[in-house]
């Protein structure tokens, strides 16, 4: 019967000791242990999260780099092709301009030559007319005095009028 009857003394001591144990352990053992366990777990999980984030960032960065590189390459191609067209255009333009200039110069020269020729011809015409008048005048004068003399003179005059 003693086996299943709680004793007053033991109940008293147990209540006292267990309460004290609970208070002391709570303050000096469980609190620091639980706190540091929690802290360590948070540390680990935050470190893992950070590693993941860093990995993602790295991936992002790499992707960005790739994209940038690709973009740069495309841009280069565009610039190159643009430059090529520009070059061709400039060359063509220059060619055209040179052609027109040459044409213009040739035309001007031709017109000049034409003008020069025309003025020279008209000068020749006037000189021929004057000479003809002079000759005619001298012939007329000689004919009037001596016939032989006159023909000699005409011949002589004609010899002088060497179409120079």
């Amino acid at each position, binding site marked *: 019967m003693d086996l299943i009857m709680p004793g007053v003394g*033991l109940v*008293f001591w147990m209540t006292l000791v267990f309460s*004290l144990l*609970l208070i002391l352990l709570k303050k000096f053992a469980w609190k620091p242990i639980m706190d540091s366990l929690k802290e360590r777990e948070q540390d680990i999980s935050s470190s893992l999260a950070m590693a993941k984030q860093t990995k993602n960032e790295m991936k992002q960065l790499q992707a960005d780099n790739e994209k940038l590189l690709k973009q740069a390459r495309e841009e280069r191609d565009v610039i190159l092709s643009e430059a090529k067209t520009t070059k061709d255009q400039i060359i063509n333009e220059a060619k055209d301009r040179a052609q027109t200039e040459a044409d213009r110069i040739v035309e001007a020269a031709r017109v000049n030559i034409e003008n020069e020729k025309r003025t020279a011809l008209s000068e020749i015409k006037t000189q021929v007319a004057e000479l003809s008048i002079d000759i005619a005048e001298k012939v007329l004068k000689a004919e009037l005095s001596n016939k032989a003399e006159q023909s000699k003179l005409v011949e002589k005059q004609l010899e002088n009028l060497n179409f120079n």
Partner: protein
Amino acid sequence: MILKKFFGGSSSFLTAAIIAVFLLGTSVAKAEGDTHSTESHAEHVEKKGFDAGKMIFEHVLDAHSWHIMDIGDHAVSLPLPIIIYDQDGSGFHFFMSSRFEHGHAAYDGYKLYEGKIVRESFDEHKEETIESENSELDVVEEAGLIDISITKNVVALFFGAFVILFLFISVARTYTRRKGQAPTGLQNFIEPIILFIRDDIAKDSIGHKYEKYMPYLLTIFFFILINNLLGLVPIIPGGANLTGNISITLVLALFTFVITTASANKNYWIHIFNMPGVPWWLKFPLPLMPLVEIMGVFTKPFVLMVRLFANITAGHIVILGFMSMIFIFGEISPAAGYGVSIVSAAFSLFLSLLEILVAFIQAYVFTLLSALYFGMAMEEEH
């Protein structure tokens, strides 16, 4: 307890060595054989036979002195302080249990009767006649005497509490000293258990408010576990049947009951007094459901108390039973005693290993059920 019988018959050198090792610095109270041989010689001869039941119950029950072993007819035990409060007006009395000379002498007006302290005027024979007439009166209680002595179990309790405090405060120191580093030494052993209690017991059973209950759950788990294991150590200061004592389990169960009741919410009380989803005629005019529910409130801690007490006490009794067989057979013939001792020792070893398992299981079960009751008390409406 076991050792005292083992070494009782062996060489004097061995016993002397055992005394020197185990009792260094403690005062050894010896029951002087010749002082009481005159008064109880006839009884003495009669009692010489080995009484397994008496030995086992002496071990399992609490005592006012710590019996270590018998050397021949001399009982070697550690005397413990007696503290009694007498309500007859004389107040507190303090003295050592060695004054009683193992129940053979009275001191200060008190004496020991069947392990209890009674007044000197207490009549054993009258009690015995009443006992024989009315078997329900076999509890010896004397009115007005409050016995709060430092008994064997109280010493074991102090020792256990000291071990727990030392262990966990030193582990806590390691945690604060080695902040943010990997655990070392004792931490490696303690930490998985703490995490198990937190993650698999508290979080699962209580829910998000588990943190408030962690100190209590950890304390009961390690209190029960360490005292269970200390109870399996056969030499002083281990070997006391502390967690197999109903007073200890009663207090533990009461703590769980008080915490459960204190943390109960409205929903818990509604479920007790006006269970939803139950036909009205179960509640009115005869409040059947409320009665059952109120009984349940008290049954839960009661079951906790009985389970731990019965498991641990049963383990101690079975191991001691196997040990007793050696001496029972030894009395028939020494050869039979030696023969049985091999089997008994093997079985005791096996049972001790089993008891180590039981020590863990009972600590786990008590903690888990306490957590479940806290969880039930705080369950929200679903």
